[in-house]
């Protein structure tokens, strides 16, 4: 599979919100690292999942890929071409579309659906492909009735608003859709409808998707590969099936274990992951996960783990991944 969008060693720093007198102190202003040395690639026609808790940098990465925030270091490449200048990002935004997290809030409350979904054409100076019928054709593609074109966003249900945002993302026939929490806040049956819509579009149009979510159940079902982010760094990535059946990073394991079981017979007695994700202002030394890691040892607090390729398709950043690997393989004996 050839890469469509490549993110290579990307870092992103922002000025830390410094308080009062601190600003007057000599020396460089304090910075906070949001993304650190992150690499990721989305293949042609691939569905890639990006998971992690709030504050892990998922949405920031999506925004950086679309040029909505500037990266400090590293390289971005879209269809093999480096993306640096404003003009490059204009091209990216024609070939890739972002579906924002809150579908209703991303629509203007004062304009009808029809007027809003054709905005991508107007912004990019592209003639409407089907003339006046364009909005209707766009709605049809995402399974919405034509009558919806004349409605205002507040008249839509959560699932309909989500479909409208899919329709708008597809306007310029992008090759890649970046979907930020596409199913958050939806009922389970509606959630399944949106996911089916996305997998259908991928099948019929060869679209690639980057799905950003903290819902592991979503990732497990629709993605080919999954990348796990923790505090702006990649913890692990690999084929979805393998990562779920044999997670190597203790963080990935904790995330999987934290998922509530819709089965009273499988209630867990233990707590999956203690504490909270640390603040980017107080980034832990060494491995950033060591403060919450059940397996942490002294080395983890002082030395940063390097990415290890377990197989050409699987990466993990943990000092003790080898041990975990043997352990998990042993533990999986009976299953």
């Amino acid at each position: 599979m050839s890469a469509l969008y490549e993110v290579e060693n990307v870092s992103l720093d922002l000025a830390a919100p410094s308080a009062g007198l601190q600003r007057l102190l000599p020396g460089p202003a304090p910075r906070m690292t949001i993304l650190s040395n992150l690499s990721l690639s989305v293949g042609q026609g691939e569905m890639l999942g990006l998971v992690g808790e709030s504050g892990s940098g998922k949405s920031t990465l999506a925004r950086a890929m679309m040029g909505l925030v500037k990266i400090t270091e590293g390289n971005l490449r879209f269809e093999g071409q480096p993306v640096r200048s404003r003009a490059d990002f204009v091209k990216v935004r024609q070939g890739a579309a972002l579906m924002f997290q809150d579908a209703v809030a991303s629509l203007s409350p004062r304009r009808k659906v029809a007027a809003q979904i054709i905005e991508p054409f107007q912004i990019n100076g592209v003639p409407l492909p089907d003339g006046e019928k364009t909005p209707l054709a766009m709605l049809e593609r995402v399974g919405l009735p034509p009558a919806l074109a004349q409605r205002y966003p507040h008249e839509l249900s959560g699932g309909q608003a989500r479909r409208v945002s899919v329709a708008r993302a597809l306007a310029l026939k992008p090759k890649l859709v970046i979907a930020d929490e596409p199913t958050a806040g939806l009922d389970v049956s509606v959630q399944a409808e949106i996911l089916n819509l996305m997998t259908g579009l991928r099948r019929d149009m060869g679209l690639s998707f980057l799905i950003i979510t903290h819902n592991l159940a979503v990732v497990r079902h629709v993605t080919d590969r999954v990348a796990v982010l923790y505090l702006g760094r990649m913890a692990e990535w690999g084929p979805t099936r393998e990562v779920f059946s044999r997670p190597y990073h203790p963080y990935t394991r904790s995330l999987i274990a934290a998922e509530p079981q819709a089965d009273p017979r499988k209630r867990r007695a233990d707590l999956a992951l203690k504490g909270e994700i640390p603040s980017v202002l107080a980034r832990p030394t060494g491995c950033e996960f060591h403060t919450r890691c059940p397996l942490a040892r002294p080395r983890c607090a002082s030395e940063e783990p390097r990415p290890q390729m377990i197989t050409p398709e699987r990466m993990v950043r943990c000092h003790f991944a080898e041990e975990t690997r043997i352990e998990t393989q042993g533990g999986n004996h009976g299953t």
Partner: protein
Amino acid sequence: MSEPLLKVDDLSIAYASEEGALQALRHATLEARAGEAIGIVGESGCGKSTLASALITLLARNARVTSGGVRFGGKDILAVSDEEQRRIRGRHIAMIFQDPMTSFNPVLTIGEQLVDFQDQREGLSKSDKRRAAAAMLKRVGIPDPERCLGRYVHELSGGMRQRAAIAAALLMAPQVLVADEPTTALDVTMEAQIIHLLRALRQDYNGAIVIITHHLGLVGELCDRVYVMYAGEVVEEGSTDDVYHSPRHPYTQALIACDPANIHDQTPVLPTIPGRLPDLVNPPQGCSFAARCARATDHCRSVAPPHVEVGSRHFARCHEALP
């Protein structure tokens, strides 16, 4: 078996709307006993929020009780005076809301509010109340309770906010604790921690817990009994184990089937529930799920289904529930 602490008895609530009376809740009956945790699950529009607001007597202005009531402490709490409702609310029946950000006043510290919440507790000095607040924060797992008392809600993380909201609800030792989507706004890791906390609190809490959610996993982890709601009606009820392992109402079956957490293999197409909710201004004459049900017959479409006992304390509102 003990008498139920709280009993929702044949409760119907309608909202006045331009199109007519919207029947958001229709003849709902359910009960919660001391020491029990019950779950109320259903999707948007099933009436669970209306039910939640009835339980804490905070019905919207355009809501009207058209039948039944909520029995608590020998009274119908929907029929008593506003003043008495205020006394019950918070003191005897407390609520944890979905968004803890909105359950606290942003311009007062957590401590000031937790002291205020104990307003009805007589014979306690302000410092006693503050101590009680700190003890409660500690109990819900807030690491530095004294420091937390001096903070504002925006200074707390999502997980800590929800813990503080739980502390606020438990402060007056209510007999009934209603939690409306208590984990929906949280990450999976924080959700697991809140589930763990609620479970730990249950061990020394003698009241009843009512969890209202669209999330089957939350009920599966926490509740003894579950009530499944659809289009304003309770369509199935039973022990969580019975309902999750042998659901008898086609809606419950469909709901469980389309929860991705229950699907272990990767599937190209996830199951959905085709169709939409019926119009609640003119609810269907027969079964409200008939239009979306694969097993519906003409009988289902014309005659409202009975409440069928399908097992021990396990009921389904369906003509086809019995094999």
